[in-house]
């Protein structure tokens, strides 16, 4: 059994930390994992992505085209940028948030033609042509509820851990979160994780097999 997870977002959203937490949780529970992290110059608000492959019979650190079981998009537009990696009817966990690149905004105010922002509705309409298993998560809102707007990544970790195909126990993931984040943000991150997990039951678990709902 293997699970391919494609993670994408914008530099600064904490994709690398997210990867570290999952990797550590896998190491603790004796699961194999390999990742390829694509971040070149992208700490600077550029596009960032991580290929994550958990389980046996996996070789390359990069996911072959059309073979990702799950896509996590920490920013909505980025989900389309890598859509070819997602398998047909794969699962998308997508942030509601759009971070408009400066070049997009600059075009709107400088162009003579009437240009509008790319919208969430447009993103979703296009994604639906690829898969119907889309969960849109207001991660920034949930992160703020946890007390720290910078925990969007942990919200998604909560969502992911609700899915039946994700092979690591919640307890292990939480332990890895507690070890990975700065001490003073541990509580907020664990709360963000719980909020994300709960949200998955509302947004996705009707369509996709999930683990047993915690009380």
């Amino acid at each position: 059994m293997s699970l391919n997870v494609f993670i994408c977002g914008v530099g600064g959203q904490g994709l690398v930390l997210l990867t570290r937490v999952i990797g550590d949780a896998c190491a603790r529970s004796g699961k194999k994992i390999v990742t390829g992290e694509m971040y070149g110059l992208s700490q600077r608000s550029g596009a960032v992505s991580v290929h994550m492959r958990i389980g046996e019979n996996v070789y390359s650190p990069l996911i072959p085209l059309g073979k990702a079981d799950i896509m996590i998009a920490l920013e909505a537009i980025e989900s389309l940028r890598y859509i070819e990696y997602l398998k047909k009817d794969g699962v998308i966990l997508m942030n509601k948030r759009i971070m408009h690149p400066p070049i997009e905004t600059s075009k709107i105010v400088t162009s003579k033609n009437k240009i509008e922002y790319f919208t969430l509705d447009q993103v979703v309409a296009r994604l639906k042509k690829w898969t119907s298993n889309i969960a849109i998560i207001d991660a920034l809102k949930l992160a703020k509820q946890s007390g720290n707007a910078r925990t969007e990544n942990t919200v998604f970790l909560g969502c992911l851990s609700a899915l039946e195909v994700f092979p690591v126990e919640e307890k292990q993931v939480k332990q890895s979160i507690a070890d990975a984040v700065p001490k003073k943000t541990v509580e907020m991150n664990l709360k963000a994780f719980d909020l994300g997990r709960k949200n998955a039951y509302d947004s996705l678990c009707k369509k996709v097999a999930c683990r047993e709902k915690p009380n």
Partner: protein
Amino acid sequence: MVLKDVLSKEAKPAFMLGNEAIVRGALEADVKVVAFYPGAPTSEVLDTFSAAIGEFDYQMEITSNEKVALEVTAGAAFSGVRSLTAMKSVGTNVASDILFVLGYTGVRGGLVIVMADDPHAHSSQSEEDGRFFAPNAYIPMLEPASPQEAKDMTKRAFEISEKHRVPVIIRTVTRVNHQSGIVQLNKFVRKDFKKVKWKDLAEEYTTLGEVARQKKLKMLKRTKAISEEFETSEFNVITKADSDIGIITSSVSYLHALEALKILGLQNKVSVLKLGTTFPLPKKLIQGFIKNLKKVIIVEELSPYLEKEVYVLSKNINPNLKIFGKLSGTFSEAWEYNPDIVTTGIALATGSKKPNYKTLSQKAKKLKENLPDRYPTFCAGCPHRATFVALNQALKIQVSKGQNHYFANDIGCYSMWIYPPISRSDSSLCMGAGVGVANGLSHVIEERVVTIIGDSTFFHAGIPAIVNAVHNQNKFTVFILDNSVTAMTGQQFNPSTEFTAGGRKGKKVLIENICKAIGVEFVEVVDSYDVKNNVEIFRKALDFDGLAVVVSRRECALYGDRVKRRQGTPIVPFYVDKTMCKKPYVCLRTFYCPAYELDKDKQPRISLELCDGCSVCSKLCPFHSIKRAGVKT
């Protein structure tokens, strides 16, 4: 978490980045001196050593460039101490002068050089194939495919280095440095750091003329001996299948090849030779592998380095062997490989049916129509953006007065000036080359030459070109963008701060003092955020009849924010007061800050989560509508 694993004395599995696995390997091998100039994709080697410095007794330097780093580690290795440096392959270009010499002189202690190529030029100016350094300098080379191998090879490299008294290169590619996986940690014991007496060790490390000629003979003998040893290296692995088709591969391409065989249903149907020792090559092993094959497929990124060797080695032993690689057109020398490219190549060579990537890609392409691009850009609060706003204004005024410009960019965060929406640079080459070419251009072109260079790049390779300009009385303008750290690679300390590796105390070197001491007659130091005043000073520097240097100083926003968070200093963001904004979009047209976006009414708004509170945009607004959030007016 990972640092904890790097430090762990336990033998256990841990999830590690390739770069961290290299550090762990070196620590297990009792490395005592390390030195680096940061460069993606190797920077985390430096960062991890820097973070772990309090736990161990190694000496560490963040050096001014890669040549110095290699010299620092060579000096230590002359004294019998294990040492390590890591650099991107374009950094090896800078270090190559001493690298070639070390092939002749050799070393006493283990010296390991991690050299990372960047196929796809993810974060480099070229897709250099650094493997050719090894045969050219007669320095042995190992190539890991995974983090586990990166750790194992680093440890073994020290042993090879000491046995044969020669530095050893660990050659990686981005996809190995930035690959994470499960690494088995071993227990290790470190000896105490003790100074040694040179007179107890004394031997000579010279090479010139007749000495060099004699050492060349020894070098050839050494290489032959290592080649023999590599015939049985544990890093060269053959997976035999009952087939007359074989694959020869190395580095991460090995992993892509295994994936491709799985996709094509060819697992255990094609033999595979994975080479870990790629200089000197285990020639007998390769010949034994290809002897009875009809077809061999060479899977390697960039140049046909292995492929050409296979042509030579097959000549007598199997002249009818069909070789599929770059020379046959099966694979390209361009760009990074992935499972899909390798699957396509192997399918072509074996006559297998490959997945229909074309339909998949075409369908995806349709969904991506008009998708906004997302180029890397200056962070919110970046002082470089403020410098460029002032510089742009100054240049515009100069143009209106009849002075036109050549704009030479350089290597650092400010390189992003080449990307839209700014897109302005006449050249962007390699470390320090902006000032270098400015010298030549200033002789020949009518326009005023303007060049920018960062603090770290100035120390790395900028100083000689500025000395040259002073001595030859060349006339151009240099803007030195001093943000205190080597920002592009992860905000490492450099001589522009009072800190060095691990946050330890270092002596700050002032750029303006160097420039004045060299004899630059126009030297001004400004605060990057002070856009309005800077326009005038920049114009004076552009008008100056001679070499003019302006140091635009303000610490990197990412670094500054991190310090603030650590100290508990609040970051107070700004907001746009809708009642005062008349939407001239000065903020958006000139500033390109990622914290800005438009709301439904096309009203500029600032994302409180992204704003760093730098205040620069607030000073540009003609209607004073940008205000500190939470501050009453």
